[in-house]
């Protein structure tokens, strides 16, 4: 099956209009030694029924029905049916970057609304049209902080050890070829929060990067990080991978974050094996011209009607080329749209209620797991994830996996010091009975039954 409309008559007449007789004539000008003179070694095409059967068979090899308590940067929450119905409308999905604003007002206004929702949730003055995802947004934030600190030769970046490991890795990749830039780690304390007291300082800091909540689900007190940064002339970058937390927690901007980024997936998008998601990126108005990414601004048309267009693109690669603030040339517009629709449907009360349901579900789950022999590793307050440890956790985790339950994420791979611990996530997508089943299976595994 292909999607070309050409009839035999079309082909013959179109070629004839160019004075050609065969399709192959179109490629005669390509030097013969640079041509592929054989068919592609790819299986023949499929009709739609066969195609769907084949794709569905592959999908069925994934165990989507698994009862999972893994969050760790990707979250399953209730999504109203209207979100996908609206965001998947072809008029949104099959448009491109709104270069011609007269015929792109739908996309442009939706992005303007997204920028507003982002700024409200992050508590920042402004926000951009979106980035690829949470980690790449965090990396761009660090690059921005380095640019802003360049004149004072601020080249040290402090990363919280409690940041999502993938976020730390991504920042390391983006910063690795920048001259003189040093990444240093901030340890975490017994409460799971930043331990700035035992930090060994070195170099002039450009920024400090902390989670909100952090990878352990612990809610940082960003006020502490902010005053630490301010005292040294550095910027505070906050990273939120669970956007629903922003419905409950004081926004990072209000706690002193100079650049606040987030992953938006949890509000309106499926987990989809990690992508696509959408990166939220907010900052102070005074940093506007150092900000990466697209921006939509409000203006008027020649008849005075309110209208929206891409703006301040002199920061961007297609104008500035090698002097651009970033090489990014797209955003994740369609994901940003789903996020905005989801937040609009939830509204302020819905967002807060849903967040509180999550926070309460986690506390219920921790209580049940405590009865099953686990204890919390950190004393700090959490949102919907918590680090737990207990005797034989690794073995029991394996046993539950064989019974169709993923009992959280084992942390040893990234944190040797937490080798026996798991990161457990409970959300509104879990019923209380799911949590009860987890706890009873965990206890049963404890008794040695396979």
């Amino acid at each position, binding site marked *: 099956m292909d999607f070309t409309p050409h009839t035999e008559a079309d082909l013959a007449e179109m070629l004839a209009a160019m004075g050609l007789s065969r399709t192959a004539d179109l490629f005669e000008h390509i030097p013969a030694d640079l041509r592929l003179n054989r068919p592609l070694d790819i299986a023949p095409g499929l009709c739609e029924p066969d195609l769907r059967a084949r794709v569905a068979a592959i999908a069925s090899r994934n165990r989507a029905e698994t009862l999972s308590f893994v969050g760790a940067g990707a979250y399953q929450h209730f999504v*109203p049916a209207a979100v996908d119905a609206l965001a998947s409308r*072809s008029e949104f999905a099959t448009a491109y970057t709104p270069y011609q604003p007269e015929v792109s007002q739908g996309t442009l206004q939706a992005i303007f609304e997204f920028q507003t929702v982002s700024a409200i949730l992050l508590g920042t003055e402004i926000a951009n049209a979106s980035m690829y995802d949470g980690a790449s947004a965090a990396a761009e934030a660090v690059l921005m902080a380095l640019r802003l600190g360049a004149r004072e030769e601020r080249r040290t970046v402090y990363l919280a050890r409690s940041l999502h490991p993938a976020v730390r890795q991504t920042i390391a990749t983006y910063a690795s070829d920048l001259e003189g830039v040093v990444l240093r780690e901030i340890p975490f304390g017994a409460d799971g929060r930043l331990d700035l007291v035992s930090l060994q300082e070195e170099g002039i800091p450009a920024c400090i990067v902390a989670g909100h909540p952090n990878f352990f689900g612990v809610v940082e007190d960003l006020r502490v990080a902010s005053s630490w940064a301010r005292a040294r002339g550095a910027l505070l970058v906050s990273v939120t991978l669970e956007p629903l937390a922003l419905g409950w927690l004081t926004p990072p901007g209000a706690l002193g974050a100079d650049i606040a980024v987030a992953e938006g997936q949890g509000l309106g998008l499926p987990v989809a094996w990690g992508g696509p998601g959408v990166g939220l990126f907010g900052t102070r108005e005074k940093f506007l011209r150092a900000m990466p990414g697209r921006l939509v601004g409000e203006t008027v048309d020649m008849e005075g009607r309110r209208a929206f267009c891409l703006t301040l693109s002199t920061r961007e690669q297609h104008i500035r080329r090698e002097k651009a603030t970033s090489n990014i040339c797209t955003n994740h517009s369609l994901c940003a749209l789903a996020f905005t629709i989801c937040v609009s449907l939830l509204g302020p009360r*819905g967002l807060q209620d849903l967040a509180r349901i999550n926070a309460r579900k986690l506390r219920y789950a921790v209580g049940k797991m405590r009865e099953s022999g686990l204890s919390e590793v950190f004393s700090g307050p959490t949102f919907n994830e918590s680090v737990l440890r207990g005797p034989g956790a690794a073995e029991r985790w394996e046993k539950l996996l064989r019974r169709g339950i993923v009992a959280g994420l084992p942390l040893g791979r990234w944190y040797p010091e937490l080798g026996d611990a798991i990161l457990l996530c409970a959300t509104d997508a879990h019923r209380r009975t799911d949590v009860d089943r987890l706890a009873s299976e965990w206890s049963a595994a404890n008794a040695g039954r396979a």
Partner: protein
Amino acid sequence: MTDERLIFEGSAPGRRGASLPGDDVPPEITLSDLEPELCRPGTEMLPELSELDVVRHYTRLSQWNFSIATNFYPLGSCTMKYNPIVNEWAARLPGFAGIHPMWPAPLVQGALALCVELEAMLAEVSGMDAVTLTPAAGAQGEFVGIKMIRAHHVRAGRARRKVLIPASAHGTNPATSALCGYDVVEIPVGSDGLVHLGDVAPQVDDDVAAIMITNPNTLGLFEPEIGAIAKAVHEKGGLVYIDGANMNALCGISRPGDIGADVLHINLHKTFSTPHGGGGPGAGPVCVKKILEPYLPVPRVHRAEGGFELSEDQPHSIGRVRTFQGNFGMLVRAFTYMSALGGDGITRMSERAVLNANYLRERLRGTLAIAQDQPCLHECVFTDQAFAGTGVKTLDIAKRLLDFGFHSPTIYFPLVVAGALMIEPTETESRETLDAFVAVMQTIVAEAASDPERLTGAPYRTRVRRLDETRAARKPVLRWRPGTGTDGESD
């Protein structure tokens, strides 16, 4: 025309638009452990709306867009082909949409297998040895590609200093090189629109890390000297990055890997039909030759005992570039598309994309001035010469096209063409649509001579007329704020 306020402006306190799951946790569980100062009092500025309010709002907004589903959208270099609906069906299967990125491998064997098959198909199309599906977009693919080139040189002793880039390149090429710490050396483009060995060779020394070259180039022309240029760069130890943004022209015709590429990225949202989404998400897989395979980003999909797994155990990898393994939803769509077309269909796709572009070029001859009068591939580029002296600019032609229901071509790019109009019809447009476009272009160019004001004032039939873009940049308003209450009539 129906106006539509901002989503925030129709808010009514207390109105609800979502039916939340119940809170089935016992009431004695409290949230008192969080410091009150860290607890948000509310998100009052967010809108309070009914579901219908939201449905009507976004349905109306959608109707203000041109899109492939509603209009011919010949935006050059963007490959705005039809995005098959069956791809959307596939991406929404619970087996794909509902799987968590941190689950252990035994639960996601289907996803891993799909990646392995997609990697193999892309390797075959590109003539390369290994593929990463991780990059979120073409620009991130470029970043990954240049990082790998740098890692290769560093391991060989030193990073080198320069990346050579033709003047006709996309802006991302120089931006990416700078991001990776390289100086950009611009290579001039010949009067025939092509890059010549004679212009490259003097720049090639052992400080050149790579050349980044787009083939077919942004004029829609095959670079005939690309093989010789690649050889010259290789002789000095440099590597060749081919920007695969325009792969839609060449699938099954010519493979970058056979003509000297060491690395290239492919935009799945162009060549392999995943929707552009109003600017994303896309996906930018990167294909490499053996010598660069050790540097591919993590995680990578590996064959293991009893199935596939994700591995981060790559000592020379450039590292991780995003939170998880890739824009998987887009990978599913591209896989579905490539499976539907098959090897024969993929080749036919490129043949007909090239047929349509050449047909348009031939039919527009005499109406517009062709930038380079030689056979083109997937797109054809025209100059502003046909309407020079009328006071009408390329931008005006673009705006007038909107009145006739056609999206504008890419304009003023490539930079090496005066007042460029870059038209890429793609293979999914019918001859009738192309003919209709030609007829409209003839009308508009005639108008340029007879009634230039008609064009400089266009468009007239769109939802809004031309915008005051200077005002948007001079006094940036980047978000709504309560109480501002700006709507068009009163401003």
